[in-house]
């Protein structure tokens, strides 16, 4: 184990003091002089043609400063990729879900803006709507987008090896269908943005986003303005979980309202808007067929998948690709067939949501594995060990794995949970279940982009300033990334000042998602730090008239090895660089990797190009109340291969938060629709777990030291909720023999299952 002085230490979040004092500024805390408040008129119907919008009464309301309808905005469709663009910031001729944006108002206060919305009259021609993706693909179903036949936005088909030969080889074949439900991200802070527009059309936006640089590009493209005229800055972010990556229509409308009025405009979503009209986890239906040998070897696996897209694409096509990649890459299986469809329905639309399709894939695959283990009378952990991925392998779907600690995760979780003892001495109504996972630990360059930049400069007083495009959304990247820089520079991480998440002052970063920041931004930061260290040593060598190879850096000094009296402090070097040499020391780091391998097929996503893959195992122990079906999670072990834990305290925070989000999805959380309308758009009816509902989460950090990761580190953020639901559902089966194949595993469903057993 390498000996580090700062990397690997349990250092609290560097922003925590500001946050506990209440002085941390979030977007909604910003109040500018003369600021107007924007509100959005949303469709109350799931599918309709807009015949006419009459704003004549609304414009006359005192205090209303501007109203926008589709006539006032560029009719440029967007999505996360131009290829999939299908959404206008304001509907022109048609609305496709309850919540679709129709008009925007800016007024002197929120109440007047809301009153103005009520005065806008829309003349509708309601259309038949479709809410079930299986109905939506039928001939004659209502069509959402004129140019999209059968409402199928995207298909994805892949076959590796020969699925037919694989099944012919199998001793046992199992088939079943698994379904997952919509989940809302539930960041405590809703979407909020403030825009100003100067007389020269320079736009400044403060916004709660996960991706300032891509947001600038997307605003520029959608509003048809030069990106250089847009300055995006992200204050503190109150949680995101994938919901704040894509452009929100509110952000584009905020810019246009600021432009039209010449005043600062703020738009803040209500909690209800957050539930009904911002993104959610795609519901899925996954039909699986697995072929296995008697010894447990999986010889063939096949998936037929339907992702319910809702009304628009956002990340949908990429989520489908990830569903395929994660399903297909986990375990060493030679013969794989995947057929997926992304289907439009007249509902709120899915988007990026912690795990990006992988929790859905994991649920189906990992419950299926539990069923196979039972069929083969094999221990479920042994079955997984038998098929587990190994380091440096290339999988059947041409994915290059580097570091891989899946087997260690399985065995360490088994030992920690006392699995063997608990299996041998089973208590009535108690059960234990396992599930494994794979995910990216550094984003992907499948789109051609996986960039993060960093600049590290030495100030005149010998201190350091780090500038990064990457932003901390609460996960702790500001702490972790300064730890990396501090380790290399030999200083206290707190002493490094920071500029982040600002498009005008930092190198670009793709954003905080894809469990990529530790790896990608970390790679950029370490490159910059090594570059600056070299410059400092070169300067020191010149000033000390010594050979650079004879120099060492320690305790904020450069000195000649063996002659500690021949030394220069960082302050002396900093001052000399600014005032004598007139050449301040500054170094850049920029990551955009890995190289796309020739095997990468952007259609099937074979050869998925990720810089590093991460693995994990969740193990849940539950107790089921036989009288009610209520499930209590008693113990929970989460083992994760994360390369190296730069900060174990923060890593545990990611794992605990992810596992609890996963337990919520497994047992309770369900964004429910009736005829296209969300019927539980509040925290009272949409049940998030409270402190009363959660078990103690035991985190096991499996350090495989990735060959390419900064200090060997890989990502963790999303991974922590991927295998949670199947571990719980498998534990419920172990406890009472009720097999849940349709999430969430509510008390009612478990009770019905118990009743069916008699």
């Amino acid at each position, binding site marked *: 184990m390498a000996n580090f002085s700062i990397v690997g230490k349990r250092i609290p979040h560097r922003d925590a003091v500001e*946050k506990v004092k*209440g002085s941390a500024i979030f977007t*909604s805390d910003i109040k500018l002089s003369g600021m107007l408040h924007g509100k959005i008129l949303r469709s109350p119907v799931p599918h309709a043609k807009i015949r006419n919008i009459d704003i004549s009464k609304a414009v006359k309301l005192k205090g209303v400063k501007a109203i926008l309808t589709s006539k006032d905005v560029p009719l440029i469709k967007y999505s996360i990729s131009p290829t999939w663009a299908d959404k206008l910031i304001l509907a022109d001729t048609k609305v496709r879900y309850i919540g679709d944006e129709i008009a925007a108002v800016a007024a002197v206060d929120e109440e007047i803006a809301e009153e103005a919305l009520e005065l806008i009259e829309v003349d509708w021609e309601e259309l038949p709507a479709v809410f079930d993706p299986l109905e939506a693909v039928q001939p004659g179903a209502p069509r959402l987008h004129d140019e999209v036949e059968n409402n199928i936005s995207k298909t994805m088909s892949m076959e590796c090896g020969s699925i037919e030969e694989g099944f012919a080889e199998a001793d046992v074949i199992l088939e079943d269908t698994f379904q997952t439900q919509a989940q809302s991200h539930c960041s405590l802070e809703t979407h909020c943005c403030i825009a100003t527009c100067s007389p020269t059309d320079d736009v400044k936006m403060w916004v709660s986003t996960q991706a300032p640089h891509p947001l600038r590009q997307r605003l520029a493209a959608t509003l048809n303005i030069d990106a250089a005229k847009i300055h995006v800055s992200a204050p*503190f972010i109150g949680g995101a979980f994938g919901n704040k990556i894509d452009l929100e229509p509110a952000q584009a409308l905020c810019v246009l309202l600021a432009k039209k009025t010449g005043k600062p405009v703020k738009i803040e979503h209500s909690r209800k808007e957050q539930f009904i009209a911002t993104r959610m986890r795609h519901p899925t239906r996954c039909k699986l067929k697995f072929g296995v040998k008697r010894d447990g070897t999986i010889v063939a696996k096949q998936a037929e998948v339907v992702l319910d897209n809702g009304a628009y694409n956002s990340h949908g096509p990429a989520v489908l690709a990830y569903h395929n990649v994660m399903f297909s890459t986990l375990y060493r299986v030679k013969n794989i067939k995947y057929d997926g469809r992304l289907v439009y329905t007249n509902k709120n639309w899915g988007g990026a949501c912690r795990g990006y399709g992988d929790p859905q894939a994991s649920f189906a695959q990992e419950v299926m594995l539990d069923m196979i283990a039972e069929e083969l009378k094999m221990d479920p952990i042994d079955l997984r060990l038998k098929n587990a991925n190994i380091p440096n392998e290339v999988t059947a779907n041409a994915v290059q794995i580097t570091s891989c600690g899946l087997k260690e995760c399985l065995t360490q979780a088994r030992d920690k949970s006392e699995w063997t003892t608990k299996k041998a001495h089973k208590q009535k109504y108690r059960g234990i279940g396992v599930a494994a996972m794979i995910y990216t630990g550094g984003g992907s360059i499948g789109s051609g982009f996986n960039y993060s930049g960093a600049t590290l400069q030495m100030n005149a007083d010998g201190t350091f300033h780090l500038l990064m495009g990457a932003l901390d959304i*609460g996960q702790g990247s500001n702490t972790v990334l300064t730890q990396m820089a501090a380790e290399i520079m030999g200083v206290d991480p707190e002493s490094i000042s920071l500029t982040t998440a600002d498009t005008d002052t930092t190198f670009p970063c793709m954003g905080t998602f894809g469990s990529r920041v530790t790896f990608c931004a970390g790679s950029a930061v370490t490159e910059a730090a090594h570059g600056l260290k070299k410059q400092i040593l070169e300067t020191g060598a010149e000033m000390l008239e010594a050979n650079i190879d004879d120099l060492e850096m320690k305790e904020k000094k450069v000195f000649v090895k063996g002659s500690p009296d021949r030394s220069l402090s960082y302050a002396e070097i900093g001052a000399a660089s600014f005032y004598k040499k007139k050449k301040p020391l500054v170094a850049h780091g920029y990551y955009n990797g890995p190289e796309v391998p020739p095997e990468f097929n952007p259609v099937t996503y074979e050869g998925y190009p990720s810089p590093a893959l991460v693995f994990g195992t969740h193990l849940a122990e539950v107790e089921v109340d036989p009288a009610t079906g209520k499930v209590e999670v008693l113990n929970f072990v989460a083992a994760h291969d994360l390369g190296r834990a730069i900060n174990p305290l923060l890593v545990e925070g990611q794992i605990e*938060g992810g596992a609890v989000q996963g337990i919520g999805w497994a047992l309770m959380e369900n964004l429910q629709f009736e005829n296209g309308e969300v019927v539980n758009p509040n*925290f009272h009816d949409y049940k998030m777990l409270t402190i009363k509902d959660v078990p103690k989460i035991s985190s096991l950090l499996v350090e495989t030291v990735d060959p390419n990761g900064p200090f060997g580190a890989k990502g963790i953020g999303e991974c922590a909720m991927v295998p949670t639901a199947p571990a719980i559902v498998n534990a419920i089966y172990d406890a009472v023999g009720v097999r849940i194949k349709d999430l969430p595993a509510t008390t009612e469903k478990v009770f019905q299952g118990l009743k069916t057993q008699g």
Partner: protein
Amino acid sequence: MESKHRIQITVNEEEHDLLVHPNRTLLDLLRYDLGLTGTKEGCDEGDCGACTVIVNGKVMTSCLVLAVEVDGAAITTIEGLHQGDELHPIQQAFVDSGAVQCGFCTPGMILTTKALLDEISDPSEDEIKHYLEGNLCRCTGYTKILDAVNNAVQLLK
């Protein structure tokens, strides 16, 4: 709109004499009239606890309280806990335990913990959970928040 009402309140030991509309919530009064933005709005429906403040020693979700209802009250917000650079032991425990991630629920969590520990100096785990049940957190999974409360109990001894 009805005419404004005059209220006198003490916030973080500072007295305020204010004219407020009858429909002004305590949350908006604190955030927008007094500039105390540490109190957060997470749902505006009393479900999430982000807007928790202490009114006359009791926790309240300030989004559900009208400003006119607290005339004469003594209110503590998150800004009233630390003394200059010195954090209150509960704040320090939240920092040290890793109980803060995005920080949006944090002020409400800390104030609920303050009310709990003012009432019960050495609470059981069940008592802690009972008190904090109304404060939602999406980031931490609550594990380190529970650690923080337990650590605060030790710091306060």
